[in-house]
């Protein structure tokens, strides 16, 4: 590993953002929310392939659970319709409950797996459910490493 951090706090204080990788959506099964499990090349040296793929697969499973169309979603829909959808003012929908679970899961993964490797996952909800943004951090002390900050500085130059 190029850099070792012990927790998120240390990451934020002693590291600087070097690069960002974006994992795109996988539309092969329609418009349901799924992310590609293809391993980005920029993360080759930072994290094991299996850990990354497991994280993305778990996220995909969560989203599939949220978007499942079955008995429960049908009941929720009918009940809501019969109350002119006013029930959503007091009740949390199933999707929202799953999103909370996802946020917690991402937080856990960041603390346990990604931060110690100098990486940080952003919740896809904050990016419009379009990408999983993975930020790559470099230790401020170390001199320029392989993943250059070209994309970050490139965006400011635009």
């Amino acid at each position, binding site marked *: 590993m190029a850099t070792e951090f012990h927790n998120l706090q240390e990451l934020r204080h002693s590291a600087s953002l070097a690069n960002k990788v974006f994992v795109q959506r996988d539309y092969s099964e329609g418009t349901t929310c799924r992310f590609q499990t293809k391993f980005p090349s920029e993360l080759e040296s930072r994290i094991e392939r299996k850990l990354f793929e497991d994280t993305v697969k778990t996220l995909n499973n969560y989203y599939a659970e949220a978007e499942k169309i079955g008995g429960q979603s049908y009941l929720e829909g009918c009940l809501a319709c019969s109350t002119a959808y006013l029930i959503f003012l007091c009740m949390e929908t199933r999707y929202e409950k799953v999103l909370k679970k996802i946020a917690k899961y991402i937080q856990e993964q960041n603390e346990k797996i990604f931060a110690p490797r100098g990486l940080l996952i952003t919740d896809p909800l904050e990016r419009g459910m379009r990408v999983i943004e993975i930020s790559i951090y470099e230790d401020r002390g170390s001199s320029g490493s392989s993943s250059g900050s070209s994309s970050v500085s490139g965006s400011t130059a*635009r």
Partner: protein
Amino acid sequence: MSAVMITRKVRKWEKLPGKNTFCCDGRVMMARQKGVFYLTLFLIVGTCALFFAFECPYLAVHLSPAIPVFAAVLFLFVIAMLLRTSFSDPGVLLRARPEEATFIEMEIEAANGNVPAGQRPPPRIRNVQINNQIVKLKYCYTCKIFRPPRASHCSICDNCVDRFDHHCPWVGNCVGKRNYRYFYMFTLSLSLLTIYIFTFDIVHVVMRSVDNGFLNTLKETPGTVLEVLVCFFTLWSVVGLTGFHTYLISLNQTTNEDIKGSWSGKNRVQNPYSHKNILKNCFEVLCGPTYPSVLDRRGMMQEDSSISSATAVSAVSAAPAAPAAPAVSAAPAVSASPSSSSSNPVSQTTKITAPLILNMHTPDDAKPSIAASAEKRTSPKEETPKVLPEADAEASVAKDKAH
């Protein structure tokens, strides 16, 4: 003159790009032109008020008191659906932040390879395979993203909307993934309400005419004439519209796809989203999960603004006093325009943390609601929900002028 950086907390909706208007501190989201929506509201409320005033007393006594009760329930349901459709986020997609936009640009350039000088670069299209069909994803120059399948850019609201159906001026909002079922329930319940009022108007006139004579009846209840007129014209358009959308739902298609003929025609791709089963399609559209809004309109964010030291002192005292003041009305695209906050004009707003994307005119289609293409439809039912071509042209002219 030194510049002072002032950080202020604002709600995210104040910094959202696009041409939406927000009310109730971000809880309500609508399109800019709301005139027709007020007309819709007026027609529904007005006609029902006349019905309750003129017909209901007579019918409650002579037929059944359940009639006005049911009418009231139906009326409340219609209003609830209308407000839900108009005020909710239709499924607007967040624009790409600078890093993501750059990442996508790099991918595009890598995919295109070296384009010889003088030649136009190939169109930005990504092919994806959905259920064994090839679907093309187009690049949106305004939002700097590859639009997900079924998404489209609404030129009136200047947003990419997921599962874009159409922009409905009667409802004052786009109809997309998140509010399609409310829109459908609105048209369905409005059809029922219209038929109900129309039927009982006729019943009432007949019943009263038997006792008093036709002309006397009209003199006693002048509201009836108005109601019958409104209901008659509404009936044709709204009932037809409901039928059209029922047809679309059974095929799992959007109005946008239907107009463009995406899935019709011989050499075209078949609809990859349809389950080939009417019930399953209806299920998915009407009883599917309620998707969350990705906009987070009421979330807080930091806004940095720099002001010259001359006005720094007074601005510092003004700024904390209005933490959520929707002061910065300057569109993110036009960076040179001064933004005004309370009494002290800020000379220049810099470095807004919201996605600050230069608003480029979308060169390709991106105008799905153009009613011109609706000409090819022969049935009269389409006329109501489509945007008038003039309104759309105005919007694009206004946008061109802004550049």
